Structure formats: structure tokens, C-alpha cells
């Protein structure tokens, strides 16, 4: 069991290292930091541009392999380079990671839990109104891109929610808190939650739809299986049999989907952050591409690769916990 997880971990680690390397090479060759300086007015002298670019390790005239070794060497020592405005990348990354992780954590937890629950309900009450209703909405949500959903949520919140409810329960759609607000910690917390609801919904809804579809199918498969009939024949109540024996088996394929969907979740969070004005990693990524800020882009690649690694490991752990056959290997 431990050997299995260690082997998976080593495998992931190599993958992350390779993916980051590939990402750095792509970013370093595709983005041209020099253009930022050349576009300035008055235009700086060639030598001063080169000096600045060399200092930041962004000079596109330096061979990319050389730039990468310098970046990787610094990275191993815990230095992720500097942003374009010459602040350490790591300092800003720390803050932004917190912002993103809050969204991602809520998104994946609520998404997976609610999705599985809806899928099970849909399967147990197959062809009931609830089933048709959730299936229809799951299809609509799966067909709605996150950015459109985010805009529609804003639209709905302003036109239909905020217009009809008292000020105290208003939903906000810019940033993660009201900057000027003072008061007790309860007031501050409530303000945070009022800001959190819309962006979280923006990524949770899609995840719920995704999981509920797969969970419904996999639970339907399990419901017809012989071992459940046996369990009931031996005197277990249907509900107990379904939850204790059925759900566990039906959850196994979900573990794999969890790892796959995490990449989607990351992309989705990029959209929600940008649209709801959260200063997280996704927003940073979008802004840095426009600014040709290679070091920041590399940092975001590291961040997302590590998160996908963690998601993969969690998926493996879930897999091992749910499926006893894995543990024997």
C-alpha cells in the first residue's frame, strides 16, 4: 500500500518537474519581455534594456536553456525570481495562493460532495421529477462556460436579488471584502461571505453538474448488481445496502474523475477570479501574459502543476481507501 503510494508520488514528481520545464520553455520562447521596454516613450537605450532584462533573467537574446538553468537553480534555492516591477515573485505569490486556494478548496469540496449527492438521488429516484429536473440542469450547466455563468450570476444578483432584499443580505461581486469596512469580527466575516458566495457558485455549479452526471451513471450500474440484491436478501434494509455497499463501489470511478476535473477547476477559477476581481493566481496569470512577465507565468505553472499533483495523490488515496484490491498490490 505504502509502496504503491510512494511509487505514484515519485511518478507525479517527475511529471511535475517535466511539465514545469516544458511550461518554462514555452513561456520563455513565446513571451517577449523586450517588447515592454522597447514600447516605452522615450525609448530606453539598447544597453540599459539589456542590462535590465539580464538582471531579471528575461533577456530573449540569452539562449533559453541558459535562462532555464538560472531560473531552476534559483528555484531550488527557494527564489522564484522577480516580477516585472522588480518585486520578488514569492512574496506576492504567497498572498495570491491563499486567495486562490480558498476558492479552489470550497469549489472542489462543495462541488464533489453536492455532485455525488445529486447523482445518488437522481439514480435512486430514476425517472422521477427530481431526476429529470437535476439531469436537465446538469446538462445546461455543463453547456455553460464558467465565464458566462459568472457574468449571469452577477447579472442575476444585481437585477433580481439585490433589488428585492434588504441591504444587509446583499451579495457583492467585486473583490473579496469591502476595504473600508470596520466592525466586529462577525460583521467582517459576514462581509467576506457575502463576497464569497457568487464566485464560489460560479465554479461549484459546474463541478456539481459534472460529478452528478458521472455519479448517477455509476450508481445506476451498481444498483443493478447482484451483490446489492444479495445484501438485501440477507436482510439488510435497502437504504443501508445502498449506502454501505452501493455508494462505496460507485464512488471508485469518481476518484479518477476527481484528478481529471481538477485541471478544469483550475481553469474555471481563473475565470471567476478575473471576473469577480479576486487577486488570485489565475488573475495574475492572465495579467502577466499581457505583460510578458515570464517569471510570474512560470510561478503559476509551478502552482498549478503542484496542485494537480496533490489532486492526483488525493485521488490515489481515495482509490486505495475505497477499493481494497489496490491495497493488496
Amino acid at each position: 500500500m505504502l509502496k504503491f503510494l510512494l511509487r505514484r508520488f515519485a511518478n507525479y514528481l517527475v511529471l511535475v518537474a517535466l511539465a514545469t520545464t516544458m511550461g518554462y520553455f514555452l513561456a520563455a520562447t513565446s513571451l517577449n519581455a523586450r517588447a515592454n521596454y522597447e514600447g516605452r516613450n522615450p525609448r530606453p537605450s539598447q544597453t540599459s534594456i539589456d542590462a535590465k532584462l539580464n538582471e531579471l533573467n528575461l533577456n530573449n537574446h540569452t539562449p533559453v536553456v541558459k535562462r532555464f538553468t538560472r531560473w531552476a537553480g534559483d528555484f531550488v534555492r527557494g527564489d522564484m525570481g522577480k516580477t516585472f516591477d522588480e518585486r520578488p515573485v514569492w512574496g506576492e505569490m504567497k498572498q495570491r495562493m491563499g486567495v486562490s486556494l480558498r476558492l479552489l478548496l470550497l469549489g472542489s469540496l462543495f462541488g464533489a460532495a453536492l455532485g455525488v449527492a445529486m447523482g445518488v438521488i437522481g439514480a435512486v429516484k430514476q425517472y422521477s421529477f427530481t431526476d429529470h429536473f437535476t439531469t436537465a440542469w446538469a446538462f445546461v450547466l455543463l453547456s455553460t462556460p464558467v465565464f458566462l455563468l459568472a457574468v449571469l450570476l452577477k447579472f442575476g444578483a444585481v437585477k433580481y436579488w439585490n433589488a428585492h432584499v434588504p441591504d444587509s443580505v446583499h451579495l457583492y461581486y467585486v473583490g473579496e471584502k469591502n476595504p473600508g469596512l470596520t466592525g466586529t469580527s462577525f460583521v467582517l466575516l459576514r462581509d467576506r461571505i457575502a463576497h464569497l458566495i457568487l464566485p464560489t457558485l460560479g465554479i461549484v455549479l459546474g463541478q456539481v453538474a459534472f460529478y452528478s452526471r458521472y455519479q448517477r451513471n455509476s450508481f445506476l450500474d451498481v444498483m443493478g448488481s447482484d451483490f446489492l440484491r444479495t445484501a438485501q436478501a440477507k436482510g439488510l434494509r435497502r437504504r443501508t445496502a445502498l449506502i454501505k455497499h452501493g455508494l462505496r463501489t460507485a464512488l471508485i470511478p469518481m476518484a479518477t474523475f476527481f484528478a481529471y476535473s481538477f485541471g478544469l477547476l483550475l481553469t474555471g477559477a481563473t475565470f471567476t477570479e478575473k471576473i469577480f476581481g479576486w487577486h488570485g493566481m489565475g488573475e495574475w496569470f492572465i495579467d502577466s501574459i499581457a505583460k510578458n512577465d515570464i517569471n510570474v507565468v512560470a510561478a503559476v505553472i509551478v502552482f498549478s502543476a503542484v496542485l494537480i499533483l496533490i489532486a492526483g495523490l488525493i485521488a490515489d488515496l481515495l482509490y486505495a481507501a475505497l477499493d481494497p484490491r489496490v491495497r493488496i498490490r
Partner: protein
Amino acid sequence: MEVLREAEVLDPDHETGEIISRGRLVWRRFLRRKSAVAGGVILIALFVVAFAGPHLTRWQYLDQDLSNALQGPSGNHWFGTTQIGQDVFARTMRGLQKSLVIGLLTAFFSTGTAAVVGASAGYFGGWVDRVLMWIVDLLLVLPSFLIIAILSPQFRGKTWLLFVVLLAAFSWMITARIVRGLTLSLREREFIQAARFMGVPSRTIIFRHLLPNMSSFLIIDATLNVGGAILAESGLSFFGFGVQPPDVSLGTLIADGTPSFLTYPWLFLFAGGLLIVAVLAVNVMGDGLRDALDPNSSAVKARTRTK
């Protein structure tokens, strides 16, 4: 009992004893799913509207009607006008064209790549398999959105076909895994073995024997990929990483409309609505196709079980 040829089956659903071809059977099953038929009809209608629509109005997508800038929907401008007086209907139709065509092409290339890579990995095994699956794993670790966004400065000012190639290049991995799995089980079947012992070259075995035997899966996958590709395209275009101005796609239209989504909702609502409808139609149709083509799929099994 008479012997049936391979392509003919006793109709298992009607149990009339009538002999019909597999194509007829699939078609009948598909028609029985009302939602899937509706999806297909809507999809065709969208294509017709997207390409015929621009001819119904006198405005082109780049025309400016400066005296009527930022007006709501009216008889003259069906979907209203933008800040600089462009006709939203003409722009939306143009965007719909782009999104649909990009979605179709991307899905085609993506599923095609997946089929070739997955079948090669499964058929040859050994180091070919290991290398190809490593590439798949590697590409799965980097979200395709990040890669294409990083590469976007490279295709700025070039043809949108390059964008299609990139979209396809980073969306085939999961399908390839499934194809590989299917190939592994097909590889041991007698007809593949027979072909191999007769000296049929590997390439012919893959294209003539392996892939046609999973055509159902590939058709379903390609259909569902159209939806995924449209979503990916519009998402990238939303941030300016995809279709470049002056050309438009549904994604860029929605991006242009969102800053003023409260005051001038017609700027994004039509494009957004059509985007959802298009992807929904593809997804519902794909779901129906799955039931029709693949009788072993869980949905059909579940239905016969409850009967």
C-alpha cells in the same frame, strides 16, 4: 432459426422478428430519444442561421451605423448596436459561424489524433505504449488553457486555423487513454490475430480493423468534443487568447459585452444565449447517440432493467 449475417440483427426492441440492418436500428433508437432529435435539429438550425442570417440583414459585421450607436434591439438592428454602432445581430451570426466551425474542426482533429495515438499505443505495446502514455500524462498535468494562453502571442495576427490546431493538440489525451484501453481488448480477438498472421501491415490493421470496430465510441466522443471545443474556444477568446479582432467569436462578443452587462445587456445576452444553446444541443445529441450506438451503455441498460 435462420442464421443472421453480421450486419443484420433481430430487432431486439420491438421483438417483431423483423430483420433490419444495424444502421436502421441505430437510427430508430436515436429517433426514439426526443431530446436527442431536438438537439440535432437545433444544431442544424443554428448552422443554417449562422450562415444564412448575415444575408437577411443589410448590415455586415464590421459596418458602423454611427447615428444609432448603443441602441437596444429594434426593427432596424434586430439585436441592437454596440458602442461604435456595429450591428449586434450581424456580429453574433459571424461569431456563431466561427465558434461552430472551430468546434467542429477541433473535435474532428482531436478525436482523430486520439484514435491514432491510442490505437498505436495499445496495438504496439512496449516502449511505444510507454512513451505515448507518458506524453499523455505530461499534457494532462499542464492545463491546456495555460499552454494555449502562453502560446497565444505566437498566433496573433495569423490565421485562426493555427488556433484550431492548438486547441486540438491539447484536447485529445483522455480520449486517447480510452481508445488504448479498447485496443488492448480488441488486439487479442481472433480477427485481429488472423489479420496479423496473414501478414497485414500494422498500419492497415489499425485503420481497417481496429478503429472501425470502435467507430461507435469515436463518433460519440467526437460529438461530445464539439461541445468541449466550443467552450474552450470561447473561454480563450474571452481573454483575448483566441480569435483575434477584427474577427469575432461568441467568446470575444461576450467579453466585449460584459463590462456593461447591467446597462446594455443585449451586448452579451444574445451571444451568451446562443453559446449555451449550441453546446447544449451538441451535448444532448451526443448523449442520444451514445444510447443509440452503444446498447451496452449504462443508460440503455438501466432502462431495460426497469421495464
